[in-house]
């Protein structure tokens, strides 16, 4: 690679951009493979290697360009391959498909029909991303570039107007104007809280102490969300640019990016992005000779959910254990080492360059009156199209789940959607027409974040217990309401799930939850009861069934369910009998099997392996008694 000369004026970066664009305009076909963690898990790297090997074999290495991009969002259909300039998208590509794609799409300009997206309802095939329902109903402002950028190459980002926002901020605006622009845009904290970003910035700017710090928070600990990770992996420069602009506005010369250590690829990409930006003179001393200096350090978190809380994150950066502290004085005034520290989520930072570049009016034109811009969701759980979704604020949940998400898996019934992880709550069916924005979601007792869809097979008591157990594990133990309250909640919920709960238990849960909300030190404790309270509020009848009838309607609580085999459906195939770890299934070849209830550990393996749907789950109903020995019906296989 040629040595890079640091850029020293806005004109030089514009020239560079034109040069890169001119180089790209040759019309050379390009194959872009999504290489985010999700696609790699399903074999994207093997596909990429196959493309390289095949091109090498055919001697076309110089004629076709191969690009590794970040997450395209449609993880359900991974690995995804896009062929430019025709923008043909192929889904679920296997290494064996590579020769066919090359010979047809590249050489003959044809389309490999069987790899195109097939609409599950109409059966129609769609060629381009825009034609696919999953993308049609989205508005991708932040994620749009993901498919065009190789996260390891700064040139790709610069070619797409990258760092233009920084140039505009540094040379045409004063720091106060930057803050005013963000204020006009009404940008709110994308981490979930929805706190006005400009207010944080202005508080930090007005604080007198020096030095000041800016921090990007990518400590995404809540199970079920991967928005920050995908953004960091796919487009690290947008976060970096936002952070530099923020630093300029606040008057800070030092930034931190806090990333979870588990996110290996994200750490790698952002570190590389920082190095490249430094080489180009877009970071470091005297950026583009504007007189503004800024340096960024990546700080790896060692895996603690509570470290995502602002004051805890700052103590972690200081090198101590990530415990929160009381915030009588806001961290924007006294944060890292007692200095003003402005912390925002990575999605907030990534929005900043767009606002500066396109103006606050553009940003305000998207979304609702109180929450402008777009919302990024990770859609997961029992839904057809899992993946990363960006919709304007104010889109209804029903649209997100049914239009973008393609409805519930296996034609089951929707039960609830859990938004915001352990700090959020469950949203039931009657609120599906809720328009997603910070205030509306908060009104129903939840908060913005990753969405996990649950169907009728999920028990809401069990699900609430899952989040409580998660938080119990993650609570730092500094304040008593959170530490002890969670312990009581967990214990009580477990007794209910085991069918030994009483009516008083519900009262205990409500009391403890309320105390925790009022008295806990940080947001982990105050929001910890959200899942339990929303579950109790919207699914009270399900709780009552657990308490009174000792039965779990979703058949998910182990202690309240029993497995049995339907003798009419059993084909006596011996599969469940062989797989059963407890040897609880009795029977022999050609004789209908039955489950010995005393031995059964309720692991569910038989339910999973049976291909004839003959294993049933029962809850609250009596188990049919097995036919006496010797009278066991005989059934020939396939008969």
């Amino acid at each position: 690679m040629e040595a890079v000369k640091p850029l020293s004026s806005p004109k030089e970066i514009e020239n560079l951009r034109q040069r890169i664009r001119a180089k790209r305009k040759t019309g050379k076909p390009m194959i872009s493979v999504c290489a985010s963690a999700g696609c790699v898990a399903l074999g994207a790297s093997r596909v990429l290697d196959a493309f390289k090997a095949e091109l090498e074999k055919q001697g076309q290495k110089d004629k076709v360009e191969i690009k590794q991009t970040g997450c395209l969002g449609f993880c359900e259909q991974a690995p995804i391959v896009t062929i430019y300039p025709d923008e043909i998208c192929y889904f679920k590509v296997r290494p064996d498909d590579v020769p066919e794609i090359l010979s047809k799409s590249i050489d003959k300009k044809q389309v490999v029909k069987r790899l195109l997206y097939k609409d599950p309802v109409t059966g129609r095939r769609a060629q381009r991303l825009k034609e696919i329902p999953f993308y049609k109903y989205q508005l991708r402002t932040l994620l749009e570039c993901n498919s065009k950028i190789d996260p390891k190459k700064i040139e790709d980002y610069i070619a797409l107007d990258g760092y233009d926002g920084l140039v505009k901020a540094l040379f045409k605006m004063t720091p106060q104007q930057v803050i005013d622009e963000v204020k006009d845009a009404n940008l709110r904290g994308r981490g979930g809280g929805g706190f006005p970003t400009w207010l944080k910035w202005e508080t930090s700017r007005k604080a007198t102490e020096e030095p000041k710090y800016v921090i990007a928070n990518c400590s995404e600990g809540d199970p079920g969300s991967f928005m920050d990770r995908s953004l960091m992996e796919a487009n690290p420069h947008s976060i970096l640019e936002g952070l530099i602009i923020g630093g300029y506005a606040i008057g800070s010369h030092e930034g931190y990016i806090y990333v979870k250590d588990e996110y290996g690829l994200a750490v790698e990409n952002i570190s590389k992005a920082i190095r490249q930006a430094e080489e180009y003179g877009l970071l470091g001393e005297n950026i583009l000779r504007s007189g503004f200096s800024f340096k960024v350090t990546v700080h790896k978190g060692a895996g603690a959910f509570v470290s995502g809380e602002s004051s805890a994150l700052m103590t972690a950066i200081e090198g101590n254990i990530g415990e929160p502290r009381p915030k009588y004085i806001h961290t924007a005034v006294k944060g890292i080492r007692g200095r003003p520290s402005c912390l925002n989520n990575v999605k907030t930072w990534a929005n900043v360059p767009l606002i500066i570049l396109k103006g606050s009016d553009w940003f305000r034109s998207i979304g609702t009156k109180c929450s402008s811009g777009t919302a990024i969701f990770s859609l997961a759980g029992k839904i057809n199209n899992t993946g990363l979704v960006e919709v304007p604020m104010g889109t209804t949940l029903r649209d997100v789940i049914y239009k973008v998400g393609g409805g519930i898996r296996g034609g089951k019934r929707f039960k609830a959607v859990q938004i915001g992880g352990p700090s959020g709550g469950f949203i039931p069916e009657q609120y599906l027409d809720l328009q997603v924005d910070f205030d509306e979601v908060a009104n129903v007792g939840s908060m913005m974040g990753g969405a996990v869809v649950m169907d009728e097979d999920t028990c809401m008591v069990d699900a609430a217990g899952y989040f409580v157990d998660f938080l119990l594990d993650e609570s730092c133990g500094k304040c008593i309401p959170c530490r002890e309250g969670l312990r009581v909640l967990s214990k009580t919920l477990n007794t209910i799930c085991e069918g030994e709960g009483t009516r008083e238990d519900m009262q205990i849960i409500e009391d403890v939850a309320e105390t925790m909300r009022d008295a806990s030190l940080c947001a982990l404790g105050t929001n910890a009861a959200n899942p339990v309270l929303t579950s109790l509020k919207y699914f009270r009848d399900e709780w009552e069934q657990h308490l009174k009838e000792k039965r779990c309607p979703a058949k998910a609580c182990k202690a309240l369910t029993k497995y049995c085999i339907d003798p009419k459906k059993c084909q006596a195939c011996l599969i469940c009998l062989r797989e059963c770890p407890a040897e609880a299934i009795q029977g022999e070849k050609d004789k209908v099997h039955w489950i010995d209830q005393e031995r059964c550990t309720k692991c569910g393996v038989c339910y999973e392996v049976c291909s004839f749907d003959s294993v049933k789950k029962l809850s609250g109903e009596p188990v049919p008694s097995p036919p006496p020995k010797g009278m066991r019906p005989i059934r020939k296989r396939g008969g």
Partner: protein
Amino acid sequence: MVELKCQHCGYRWDYRGDNEYYATCPRCRYKVKLPEDKAREVGRRKLSLELRRNLLTEKQPTKLLGVAGTVNRVIEEFGYGKNMLIQTLLRLQRSFGWLPREMVSEVSKQLRVPLSQVYQIATFYKAFPLAPRGRHLIRVCMGTSCKVRGAPMVLDKIQRTLKIEKDQSTPDGRFSLETTKCAGCCALGPVMTVDDEHYGNLRLPDVERILSKYE
């Protein structure tokens, strides 16, 4: 060395200590105030002593061996920063697999951080195992999405196949089994990772096939 005279008993002696304000008379234990010029001399000597001590410890010319050497290389890279304690431990853990007692106490010695504080961090965060691990680390994701899609059954299956419980290692040192809160691939649940390789959309029969790949 400065000569002092006790105002109380008249005893004269050579003071070798480094307190710039008071010295204690060796004979009568009376506090003797240092005259200004002598105090200055003591201060000068103290400074040079400190400088020499710093030179000796921080830029040690002798090569450290074994655990001390490994730890020293990492600490040197982070510039002896005490705020880099977590990063230091993370790096050590990455390269060694777990944190043996010797390593932790070595970090405490070289960074001059109390051992209790190092252990506080090592036990607070999830990323630091303090017991040896098997050659391959299996992590089963127990995130919300993976859970509703059947991760507990996958975990059950692995436990049965390897005959170990979660957070244990197989006796032959081949596998360690852990659960993680979220691997961040919620769309592909249930997910497990072996070393750094992800396996998504798991079905129960896949488990044995995947495990047999690792020796």
